[in-house]
């Protein structure tokens, strides 16, 4: 006898309303993509929290490793000139 845990895990992304991007809502087990969508609807949009759902097999996701967090994101760390607040503008100058 198989059980639900033999079912693959899916990550669920929900678009809460038009104009917003899909956001990770959680995960669930389902035997196939269609059932994953239906389960996601029942599990994550019982109160009309979404207008669109994506389900993605969890195994298809490649993630960065927390161990290399520092070296991986470090290149952006010393580039404050990428932010507008880096620049000094004389007082009174508008629309800039």
């Amino acid at each position: 006898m198989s059980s639900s845990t033999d079912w693959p895990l899916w990550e669920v992304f929900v678009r809460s309303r038009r104009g917003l991007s899909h956001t990770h809502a959680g995960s669930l087990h389902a035997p196939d993509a269609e059932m994953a969508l239906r389960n996601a609807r029942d599990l994550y949009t019982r109160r009309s929290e979404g207008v669109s759902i994506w389900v993605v097999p969890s195994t298809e996701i490649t993630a960065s490793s927390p161990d290399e967090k520092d070296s991986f994101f470090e290149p952006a760390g010393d580039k404050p000139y990428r932010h507008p607040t880096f620049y000094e503008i004389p007082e009174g100058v508008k629309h800039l």
Partner: protein
Amino acid sequence: MAAVTADQTTQGQARGTAQATAGGPDGPAGADVAQQAAFDAAVAADERIEPRDWMPDAYRASLVRQMAQHAHSEIIGMQPEANWISRAPSLRRKAILMAKVQDEAGHGLYLYSAAETLGTSREEMLDKLHAGRQRYSSIFNYPTLTWADVGAIGWLVDGAAITNQVPLCRCSYGPYARAMVRICKEESFHQRQGYELLLTLGRGTPGQRAMAQDAVNRWWWPSLMMFGPPDDASAHSAQSMTWKIKRHSNDELRQRFVDICVPQAEALGLTLPDPDLRWNEERGHHDFGAIDWTEFQEVLKGNGPCNEQRLTQRRRAHEEGAWVRDAAASYALKHPAPTRHAHAPAHITEAPHTEMHQAEMHTPPNAEATA
């Protein structure tokens, strides 16, 4: 376990790397100390621990215990109320009760998913529940004798659960905290429908009023026990507070709940079954009578009114649902997914007809619980 969550996908690799470097200049002990220090610093800074971060084994084990018990409570908690769906007094009440019981199932699933990020599997947790090796909240071992019990459960049991769960939204473990945010948003409907149900009975016939009072009398003390043993007798409290899994002590939350309930009971025109309950001006809190911890221990040991019934029903539901799970698995085998990569973009771009019409949109999830 065949599948892991996205959060876990490279957990094994991350650990492998840690072990590989452990043989370096610092040696294994040095690496452990560094990891422990990083963990402690994150907890101290009120940062969240995420599934792939290093964490002490005891922290992981403690979370699995608590989250599995929490998930089991949601699932077992469906039973006492589902008992009344077919006998709800109106279509309105029936629809509300079905929605609530469905929510409890949903809450269980959020929590099982969150617990799985710690490396335990759904099957393992269910097996342990069915074997009596993982617990669920003792409160569900009490019977629902009348319709008014549905109201008392919503008001008192869900009320106590909310008091417990709101601080868990800031729990140090990210997936648990996120599940709790979602759950807390949904629980407030549970509590309010129960309160409204009791209010309706309280304004009804003398018989209905007596039924409401009787239900409150029976559920009050078990609800107070939901906060767990007194602080000096609580096995896990101190460590959980240090890890910021728990934010407030059992007694602190219990007191908060009592203070909240007293005026709510007055508004209902019902009394709470405690002759020692009175306002203490000096403390700024209500004093209340001693809790019968012998009863709590007995129910915990399996000697409550419904322990056997709840577990038997759970096992039966699992076994009787096996053919559905098998059928779905067989169907999936016979209809393999179309070659995904051939038209991958289609997965990302939703077809227009799957979008709901704008007018059907409800307000977006409120920000209350996340504030």
